[in-house]
């Protein structure tokens, strides 16, 4: 039964003889591989192509850009993510838009709306002669009229649409009746003529215009929806957008790319634009960098750490690189309804214990230290805030003593971390910081889905990293959404720190209706101070966005409100291949 000893030894010897060269070969291969990797050819230090040098803007060419993941929807009522907005903003226009300084300006509206004395009625006049894109859903040329604005908004707010943008318009008169199906129309929308529409609110609301400038409020033609419903596939409208924008949707190969062509009938005449736009999906990291370096991609927006450092230190790229702070706040959210974070001193201790400079270093400088909820470009931001949170270990220890934990907290605190390598690495950094003031952190890494669900329930997650990116540049979009007690629900709370402060609620309610800008901002500064001092979050950093574009891409700068907005780009073609793209220090093409 059992093999005899001599045979097994012979076998073992045979195996040894057979395997030895193999192992040596493998080791040699590994060594060769390692050697090859450490002796890689020098990488080109600058752009491979430059522009032709046209002085005047010109039309034509194909502009290629990428999105880090898939696009979800091209329906302005449904889409609620930066990637989808990249495409939607090419195809559609809003009544209002933001200029390159981030100021609100009229777009499809012929002027900024008239606001009534009491601040509750907004009257818009539409630009005349604006045509929707050519489409088989129309009988002929189709002009945008005030009725389209009403129809679009009512579809947006209809419960069967399932739009994530409903709550921004909740102060429209008749909103609740319409949502409950008691009225066929929204009482607060009044079409007063072919080009005139007025909106009436129940309460004065200074954020209403910001809401009207959101993508949710972009007018859409009802024929497109009716056409697809008649075809028995109502969802198809999300893949076949028809708008008024500078580019006409051409095709979408799902998961691969979208193409757009220049709108020759665009209302803004003689606009220099590329003839075609190509948006590549699922393009990120090294793939994007590789294509950009080869000249196959015209802009580069997501930069892995190492490549960021490379481009930052390549002088030939400097004129084509922009680093701008983004309207994002990252922090550590503490559940104020759960021990030990129901104690304000513990929260303050946490806010003071985290070394934001170390986080900045870890992110190659792309995490700007922050100490308040509002990012620098948002009105109400106050660099001299009295209660500004900052790293101060002595103060943190003092707060721990005041909290009654001079020797630290015995029970470990559970930190919920959503999926993603980056957040976890950062978590281990602040975790080590908290260890120093006697708070022991245990990590519970969960799927993003679980993270979202559990952190939205009161009494569930003690501590978790959180971030907020603005919907529109207004302080209410940060303070009210994240800290007003009306946003606490049994599930899916927006106020995930479950912070309740009647004083803050009153301030925020007052500020939302306050028509005087200076007085309004003063109220928000006060609210900002309260939130920093009570520390439901430890505010940690604002993102520094880094973008690059090819030298032949003209008229592009990162937009202060929209990320990756390529509506105004033109191409300086034909592009010229740089003979030797390995530049010497300081030389520019």
């Amino acid at each position, binding site marked *: 039964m059992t093999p005899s000893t001599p045979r097994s030894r012979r076998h073992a010897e045979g195996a040894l003889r057979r395997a030895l060269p193999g192992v040596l070969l493998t080791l040699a291969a590994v060594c060769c591989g390692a050697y090859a990797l450490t002796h890689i050819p020098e990488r080109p230090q600058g752009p491979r192509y430059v522009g032709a040098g046209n002085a005047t803007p010109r039309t034509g060419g194909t502009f290629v850009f990428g999105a880090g993941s898939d696009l*979800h929807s091209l329906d302005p009522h449904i889409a609620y993510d930066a990637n989808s907005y990249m495409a939607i903003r090419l195809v559609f226009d809003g009544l209002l838009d933001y200029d390159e300084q981030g100021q609100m300006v009229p777009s499809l509206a012929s002027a900024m709306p008239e606001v009534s004395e009491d601040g509750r009625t907004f009257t818009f006049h539409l630009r005349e002669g604006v045509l929707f894109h050519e489409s088989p859903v129309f009988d002929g040329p189709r002009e945008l009229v005030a009725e389209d604005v009403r129809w679009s908004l009512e579809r947006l707010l209809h419960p*069967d649409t399932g739009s994530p943008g409903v709550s921004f318009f909740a102060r429209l008169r008749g909103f609740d009746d319409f949502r409950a199906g008691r009225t066929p129309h929204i009482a607060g929308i009044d079409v007063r003529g072919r080009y005139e529409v007025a909106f009436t609110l129940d309460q004065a609301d200074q954020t209403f215009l910001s809401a009207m400038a959101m993508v949710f409020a972009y007018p859409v033609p009802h024929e497109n929806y009716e056409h697809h419903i008649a075809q028995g596939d109502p969802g198809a409208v999300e893949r076949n957008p028809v708008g008024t924008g500078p580019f006409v949707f051409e095709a979408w190969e799902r998961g691969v790319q979208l193409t757009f062509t220049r709108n020759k009938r665009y209302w803004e005449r003689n606009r220099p634009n590329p003839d075609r736009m190509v948006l590549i999906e699922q393009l990120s990291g090294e793939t994007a960098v590789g294509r950009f370096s080869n000249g196959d991609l015209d802009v580069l927006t997501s930069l892995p750490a190492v490549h960021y450092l490379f481009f930052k230190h390549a002088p030939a790229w400097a004129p084509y690189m922009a680093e701008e702070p983004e309207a994002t706040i990252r922090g550590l959210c503490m559940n104020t309804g759960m021990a030990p974070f129901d104690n304000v001193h513990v929260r303050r201790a946490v806010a003071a214990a985290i070394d934001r400079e170390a986080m900045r270093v870890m992110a190659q400088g792309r995490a700007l230290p922050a100490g308040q909820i509002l990012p620098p470009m948002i009105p109400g931001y106050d660099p001299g805030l009295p209660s500004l949170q900052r790293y101060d270990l002595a103060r943190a220890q003092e707060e721990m003593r005041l909290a009654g934990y001079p020797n630290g907290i015995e029970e470990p605190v559970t930190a919920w971390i959503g999926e993603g390598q980056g957040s976890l690495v950062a978590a281990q950094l602040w975790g080590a910081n908290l260890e120093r003031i006697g708070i022991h952190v245990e990590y519970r890494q969960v799927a993003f889905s679980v993270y979202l669900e559990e952190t939205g329930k009161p009494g569930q997650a003690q501590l978790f990293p959180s971030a907020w990116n603005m919907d529109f540049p207004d302080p209410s979009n940060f303070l009210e959404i994240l800290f007003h007690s009306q946003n606490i629900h049994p599930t*899916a709370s927006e106020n995930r720190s479950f912070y309740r402060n009647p004083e803050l609620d009153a301030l925020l309610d007052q500020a939302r209706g306050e028509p005087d800008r200076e007085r309004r901002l003063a109220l928000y500064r006060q609210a900002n101070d309260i939130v920093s001092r009570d520390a439901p979050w430890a505010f940690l950093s604002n993102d520094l966005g880094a973008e690059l574009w090819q030298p032949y891409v003209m008229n592009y700068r990162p937009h202060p409100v929209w990320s990756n907005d390529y509506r105004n780009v033109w191409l300086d073609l034909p592009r010229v291949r740089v003979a030797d793209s390995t530049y010497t220090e300081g030389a520019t093409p």
Partner: protein
Amino acid sequence: MTRYLVKRTLWALFVLSTVVSAVFFLVHVAGDPAAVALGPRANADAIRDFRRIKGLDQPQLAQFGSYLGVSPCVRRDSPDFHDGAGYCGLLQGSLGTSYTHREDVAAVIGHRMPRTLLLGVMAMLFELLFGVTAGIVAALRRNTWADTGLMVLTFAGISVPTFVTGPIALFVLAFLLGWFPMGGYGVGFWEHVRHGLLPSMILAVGGAATYARILRGELVETLRMDYVRTAHAKGLAPRTVVVRHALRNALIPIVTLLGLSLPGLVGGAIITEKIFNWPGLGMLTIEAINKLDVPIIMATVLMFGVLVQLGNLLADVTVAALDPRIRVGERG
């Protein structure tokens, strides 16, 4: 034989339905699909709307019944939803609407399937090309350094997983040397093929190594057989003997394995697709799981299950057809 087939099919159906129901209830344990589909910015209003439209506000059992199509439709976005009278489930041939892609699941899979199949077919070709060549060379040059070297290489091929070889190959061959595209899918058939070269080669490493080892073993054994010796004795050139006689026999297990490897290729493609940004079924599965896109998860599970069951069935039937002993056993 017919009775056997019927029995096997019934069993396969039972397995499938068990898997489907298990996954359906498991998925709902993993989180709230509404919160995930709408993302971190969604407010309570939007989540309530979404749950109502997708029927997620209904009891689990009602949802499952509706998904199967044995109880009335609960999804308000379905064209078959008529005030509790219509049916919109599996039995009616509907896989539902994807939460994140916002498109009919069958259509979503219809986009993705050809991509994964292309990758699978290319990988299979590479497996055969490399595997068979290496196997023949090793068998002919048995116990020389070429044989040893090849066998060690194949051993390494089996031992090194794709998530090790993939990123390294992408980095060295595509990023540094520029021989291949940096992942992605391209536009147009030949572009797809070009983009698929590197991922399919990586995907093929394990299979090629396995085939080479099996083929070598089979060939070595066949070459010892009498009829091959006879052919030799007749004075036929060794190469002719190998190709004409030995190879034909030795290839049988390879062909069987190939047939069985299809579900494996589809499943194994998950990691490869992720590494190379190949927008196929594997990527779809990962995304669906991450985003709790229940209709897509269910569809991929169903599809994978069908593939596995079909594979098993085919294997059993083939073996039964090839091997007379089994047929006798079956009768008894």
